[in-house]
C-alpha cells in the first residue's frame, strides 16, 4: 500500500494495536502452523462427556501418561459441538490450527476434500500398528472410498433400541420388538395415560439424517448413487423417510411434542418413563447420569423388516463414532503420530472407551470383557454385522443438514396434524436435493 496517508493510518493502527494487545492480555494462537515444536502438541477434543470439564477431567490423566512416556506436552482444548465446525473451518482456511483433533466420523470425507488432513496410507498406518488392528466398519467411515483414510477411528458407537423393561413387563410384552410392525404394535400398547411408546428427537438434524439413512437402506435405497450424485427422491428413500415420520404422525406412538426435541429430551423422556422406547447411540452413560438403574432398561438391535439384522436391507444402524485426524500443517507431525498411536493403543482404548461408554474400534481392545455388558454387546454386534457407513461423499455435511431440516419440517407438519403423504415427503426431499450444490 504505497500511499503515505495509508501508511500513516497503518502506523496509527499498528501502534493502537500494540497498545490494545498489551492491555488485552491475549494469548497466542492455538498451535503453530509451520513452526516446529517438537515438545508440544495441541489437541482439540470434542465434547463426549457430561460437560467440558468432565472431558478435561477424563482426558488430562491420559495426556499426562503420554507426556511421561514421550516427553511431549499436550495442550488440550475441549470444544463444544456448536463451535467445532467453525473452528475447523477457520483452521483449515488459515493453516493455523491444532496438531491433532477429533472429528465426527461422518465429516471425514468432507474434511478430506479440503486437503488439510494427513492421509493415512499404509505406511502411516504402520506407525500406529497397521490397519488390521481396526474394526472394518469403523474404517469404512474414515474417508471417501478409493482414497486412503483421512482419519483414524477413535471411539465407535452404534444405534440400539433402548427400552424400559418395567413398562414392557407391565404392558405384558415379553420381548423387545424385532420388526417395525412389532414395534408399532408394542408402541400402541404402551401409549396410554400420558405415556408414549417411543421417543423421537425430531428437531435434531443429525439424528434425523442418521435414521433416514437406515430406513432408506431397509427399503433398498441410498441417498447417493455410486458416482456420488444425490438420489433423495428415489422411491425407496421416500418410503423410508415416510416410515420414520409416520411413527409420530400416523402411528402416533411418539408424542407430538417430540417434533421440537433437539437437546436430548428424548433420552430424558426414556429415563423418566414418559416414553418406553428410544432409538439412540450408546445411551447407557446418559441413562446412568440421569439416575436410571441399569436393571430397568435393556437394549435390543434396532428393528429391521425381516427381524434379523444383517447387511443390505437388514442394516439397522449407521456406523457412528469419533475419528482422530492430524492436520497437515502441524509443526510436530512425529509427535502427532505418536499421540494417535497412544490414543489408539489397546490400553488407552480400553480406558477411554469404558469411561465414555463407547466401543473401541480397535479389535483387541473391543474383545476385553469390560465391553461385554448387555448394552455394549448388542452394539458391538451391530457394528460388526449390521452397520453401514453414512455416504462418504464430500457433500456429506450438506446432506445431513438439508435432509435433517426437511425431516424436521415434516415432523412439524405431522405434529400439527397436517397429513404427511408420499408426495409431500418426496417434495420436501426434492427441495433438499436441489439445494445440494455442486
Amino acid at each position, binding site marked *: 500500500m504505497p500511499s503515505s496517508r495509508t501508511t500513516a493510518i497503518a502506523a496509527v493502527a499498528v501502534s493502537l494495536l500494540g497498545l490494545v494487545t498489551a492491555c488485552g492480555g491475549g494469548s497466542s494462537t492455538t498451535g503453530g502452523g509451520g513452526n516446529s515444536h517438537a515438545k508440544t502438541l495441541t489437541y482439540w477434543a470434542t465434547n463426549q462427556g457430561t460437560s467440558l470439564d468432565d472431558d478435561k477431567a477424563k482426558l488430562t490423566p491420559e495426556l499426562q501418561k503420554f507426556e511421561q512416556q514421550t516427553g511431549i506436552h499436550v495442550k488440550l482444548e475441549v470444544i463444544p459441538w456448536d463451535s467445532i465446525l467453525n473452528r475447523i473451518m477457520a483452521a483449515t482456511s488459515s493453516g493455523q490450527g491444532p496438531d491433532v483433533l477429533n472429528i465426527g466420523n461422518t465429516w471425514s470425507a468432507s474434511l478430506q476434500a479440503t486437503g488439510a488432513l494427513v492421509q493415512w496410507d499404509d505406511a502411516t498406518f504402520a506407525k500406529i500398528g497397521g490397519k488390521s488392528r481396526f474394526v472394518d466398519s469403523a474404517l469404512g467411515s474414515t474417508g471417501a472410498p478409493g482414497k486412503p483414510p483421512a482419519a483414524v477411528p477413535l471411539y465407535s458407537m452404534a444405534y440400539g433400541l433402548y427400552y424400559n423393561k418395567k413398562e414392557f413387563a407391565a404392558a405384558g410384552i415379553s420381548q423387545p420388538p424385532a420388526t417395525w410392525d412389532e414395534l408399532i404394535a408394542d408402541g400402541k400398547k404402551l401409549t396410554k395415560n400420558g405415556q408414549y411408546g417411543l421417543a423421537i428427537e425430531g428437531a435434531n438434524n443429525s439424528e434425523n439424517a442418521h435414521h433416514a439413512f437406515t430406513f432408506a437402506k431397509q427399503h433398498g435405497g441410498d441417498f447417493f448413487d455410486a458416482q456420488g450424485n444425490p438420489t433423495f427422491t428415489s422411491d425407496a428413500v421416500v418410503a423410508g423417510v415416510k416410515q420414520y415420520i409416520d411413527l409420530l404422525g400416523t402411528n402416533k406412538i411418539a*408424542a407430538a411434542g417430540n417434533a421440537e426435541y433437539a437437546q436430548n429430551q428424548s433420552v430424558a423422556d426414556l429415563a423418566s418413563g414418559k416414553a418406553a422406547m428410544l432409538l439412540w447411540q450408546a445411551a447407557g452413560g446418559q441413562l446412568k447420569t440421569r439416575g436410571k438403574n441399569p436393571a430397568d432398561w435393556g437394549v435390543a438391535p434396532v428393528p429391521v423388516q425381516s427381524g434379523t439384522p444383517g447387511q443390505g436391507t437388514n442394516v439397522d444402524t449407521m456406523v457412528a463414532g469419533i475419528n482422530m485426524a492430524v492436520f497437515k500443517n502441524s509443526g510436530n507431525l512425529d509427535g502427532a503420530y505418536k499421540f494417535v498411536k497412544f490414543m489408539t493403543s489397546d490400553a488407552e482404548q480400553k480406558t477411554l472407551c469404558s469411561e465414555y461408554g463407547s466401543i473401541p474400534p480397535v479389535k483387541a481392545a473391543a474383545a476385553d470383557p469390560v465391553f461385554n455388558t448387555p448394552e455394549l454387546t448388542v452394539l458391538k454386534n451391530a457394528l460388526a454385522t449390521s452397520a453401514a457407513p453414512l455416504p462418504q461423499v464430500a457433500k456429506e455435511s450438506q446432506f445431513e443438514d438439508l435432509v435433517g431440516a426437511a425431516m424436521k419440517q415434516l415432523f412439524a407438519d405431522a405434529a400439527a396434524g397436517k397429513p404427511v403423504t408420499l408426495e409431500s415427503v418426496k417434495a420436501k426431499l426434492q427441495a433438499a436435493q436441489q439445494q445440494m450444490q455442486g
Partner: protein
Amino acid sequence: MTLATPRRAPGPEHPGSGRTRPGNRITRRIPDRVRRRGLPYLLLLPALGFELLIHLIPMLVGLVMSFKELTQFYIRNWRTAPWHGMANYRVAVDFNAPIGHALLHSFLVTCSFTLLAVGLSWLFGTAAAILMQDTFRGRGLLRALFLTPYALPVYASAITWAFMFQHDNGLVNHVLHDQMHVAGQSFWLIGDNSFIAVVVVSVWRNWPFAFLCVMAGLQNIPRELYEASSIDGAGIWQQIRRITMPSLRPVNQVLILVLFLWTFNDFSVPYILFGRSAPQQADLIAVHIYQSSFVTWNFGTGSAMSVLMLLFLLAVTAVYLLVTTPRRRHARA
C-alpha cells in the same frame, strides 16, 4: 401557540454560517486564527483506521470471494480458488430454482419480521420513556427492570424464551392452555407460530434500547417549551404530539435505522431459538446465509448472498435517509 425560539435546536441547523465554497476547506465556523487544516483529518484518523482494518478491507476480500468458487476444496488457499464470475450471484437470484427461491422466501420473512419487531420495539420504548418522564414512586426500580432484558446476555434471554416456549413444559403453553384456556397446546418453536416467537424475543431484547435512546433524547427538550405550551392551554396529549415527537425526530431517525439494521442482521436470536435449521416460517436471512455457506462449506455462495443483502440494506438506508432528512443543507450521511 407562541413558542420561545428554542435555544438548542434538536437538529443540525446552521443558522447563517457554514456555507462551503469549493476550495475553502475551513468555513467561518471556526475562527481563522486556528489554522489547523489537518485537524479534522487527524481527528478522523483513528476511526478511519479501524474501519479500514476491520470493516472495509475484509469486506472487499469478502466481495472478491463472492466471485470465486470457494468451497471446501479450495478453502485452504482461497486466493487460488477458481473464478466463478457471476455464477454465485446468478444462483442466488434465480428465484425459480430452489436456492434462489429459498433465499427470496427468507428475505421476505426477514423483512416482515424486521418491520414488526422494530415497530413494536420503538413503540414500547417511546411509550415507556414518555410515560416515565415524570417522577413517581418506584420509577427507578421500574427503569432498572426495563433495562434488564437488554443487559442480559443474548444466549440467556433467547434460551429462557426457548424454555418458556416449549410445547410440553413451557410457561407460555402452561398459561395459555392449562390456566387461561384460551388456546390449544401449540408449538412455538416449530410450525406457524415460530414467527411470533422470534418477534416476541426480538422485541423483548431490543425495546429497552429504544427506551434508553428516547429517554436520553427527551432530556434534550427544553422545559420552557412545555411550560410555554401549557400556559397556552395545551394538554399532555397535545404536548406529546406537538412538542415531544417532533423534538425526538433526530433521535428517532437514528434509532429506527439502527434498530432496523440490528434486527435485520440478527443472527444470535434465531440461531439460539431454533438451532441450525430454522422453521420455514421463521427462516431469518442471517441464519439462512450461515446455513448456506458456513455449514455447507460454500463460502462463495454465502459471500454472494451477503453482498446482495448488503446492497439491499445500503439501498434501504439511502432511501430512508433521503426521505427523513428534510431541509438539511449538509446531509450528514
